[in-house]
């Protein structure tokens, strides 16, 4: 029996991907267009990129984002790795319950976390700053690193730790010499994931950022509301490029780890 070629699925996929990619492609292309508005191509230029770099707000927002997401990633990896190691090594009453409890921050909508932390900072008289954004980001990033590292540990044979003890390692020495080296790939890939989530967040940061502590996402949000601008096209192109690179690296790392 010969199958007749059915063009339906292919057409559907093509249409879906076209709708998905055309707006992004338009944005990228017009970031290099000389004309400020409209869709007619008037020549290649990099002036929007240069203008963007001369924009102090944009540059500062970028720096802020790097600081916030950098610190968030570092702390989330450490705290998540520690908790994952503890979870992997020890059994105790209520472990399953604690596990699902620690997972909840990822399913609560980001905005709710934002408003509740906002009012919580207020009652505790904590002034809004970069630090308050970092706290908020860590809260929803730790579960990500924790779960990724824990699942990589679950494939880790417990007798390997016993072997280290047997050969003269202390309990902490075993964690340091044997467990940690084996979860480094998971730490890196979960860290990249945490960085992405932190870098892209706007719904939480919106509520908990101090006046001068706009992150890049917040800056973009502010700019978007005022309409289409070529510098914004340029900025978007840069961000998209770096995020996609980061994403590809993460995926590649996860794939390598699975092997």
């Amino acid at each position, binding site marked *: 029996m010969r199958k007749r070629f059915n063009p339906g699925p292919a057409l*559907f*996929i093509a249409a879906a991907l076209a*709708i*998905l990619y055309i*707006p*992004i492609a*338009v*944005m990228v292309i017009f970031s290099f267009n000389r004309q400020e508005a*409209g*869709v007619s191509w008037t020549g290649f230029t990099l002036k929007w990129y240069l203008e963007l770099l001369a924009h102090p707000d944009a540059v500062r927002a970028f720096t802020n984002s790097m600081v916030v997401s950098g610190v968030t990633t570092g702390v989330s990896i450490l*705290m*998540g790795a*520690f*908790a994952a*190691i*503890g*979870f992997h*090594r020890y059994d105790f009453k209520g472990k399953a319950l*604690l596990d699902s409890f*620690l997972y*909840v*921050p990822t*399913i*609560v*909508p*980001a*905005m*709710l*976390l934002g*408003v*509740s932390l*906002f*009012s*919580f900072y207020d009652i505790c008289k904590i002034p809004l700053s970069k630090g308050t954004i970092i*706290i*908020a980001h*860590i*809260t929803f990033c*730790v579960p990500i690193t924790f779960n990724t590292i824990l699942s990589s540990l679950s494939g880790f044979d417990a007798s390997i730790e016993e072997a280290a003890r047997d050969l003269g390692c202390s309990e902490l020495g075993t964690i340091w010499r044997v467990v940690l080296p084996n979860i480094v790939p998971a730490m890196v890939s979960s860290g990249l994931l945490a960085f992405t989530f932190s870098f*892209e967040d*706007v*719904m939480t940061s*919106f*509520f908990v950022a101090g006046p001068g502590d706009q992150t890049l*996402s917040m800056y*973009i*949000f502010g700019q*978007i*509301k005022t*309409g*289409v601008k070529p510098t*914004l*096209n340029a900025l*978007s192109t840069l*961000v*998209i490029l770096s*995020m*996609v690179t*980061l*994403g590809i690296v993460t995926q590649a790392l996860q794939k390598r780890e699975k092997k």
Partner: protein
Amino acid sequence: MKNQSSFKKRRLSVMGMTIGPMTAWTVLFFVFPLAYIVSLSFCGRDAYGGIVYAFTLKNYQTLAKPVYMQVLGKTLRMSLIVTCFVTLIAYPYAAIAARAGKRVQNALIAGIMVPFWTNALLRIYAIMNITSANGLINTFLLGLGLVKEPLQILYTDFAVMFGMVYTMTPLMVMPLYANLQKIDGSLLEAGRDLGASPAALFLKVIFPLSIPGIVSGVILVYIPSMFSFYIADALGGGKSIIIGNVISNQFSTSKNWPFGAALAVLVMGLSTLLILAKNLLTKKLDY
């Protein structure tokens, strides 16, 4: 035995050192704030926007006012429409991907995931770009002479919903793809063998088995779309207001935190109900 207890004590201290920080963090910066906002929803507010710590149900009474109920109703309706459209796009996409060859499969999934790795805000901005008065769509339509004046696409409910569908489709594709891929190919062959037509095969075998995937996808799309105030802000231009905007306004411009808290609690309650319903359904459908 003495050394046995010292054994245990050391174990406990290492356990505390590892699990302690994250647990403490979650309690301090997640449980406390959530608990505080729930209690805030039962507090009053003075004329200057300050909080009056006295028990009241006023906020919940205000909530029942038609104006807020309308916004809530509209939000639930819009999220529902968005979820339906996302499902209509994501299901065939995931189904085609799940049945394709290994290479095509990876390409299709990467194809939908790569934009997902870029900031949602930027994708919203990209939509603004092509839907604006002098954007690609209008230029195209004007050029073909199909319309005399630029269509008002941006700053409408349609634009908001389109933006939500656009940004959230990948969220639905992933669980559906994972679910559909797990369906054993021999089941389909068995169905054919027993005389099912392709349509009957879909209705009687594939679709029932994919319900858990649909349900997870629905949750992943429906709840965030109620809150995505930034999409409504950017693509609705302040004209399309969803519940997320109202909450956000209470905490920023209107300075009525207790009322904002009550709204948040309401939506949080709705979301929790949805998740519980999902868990119940998934448990029941646990093949």
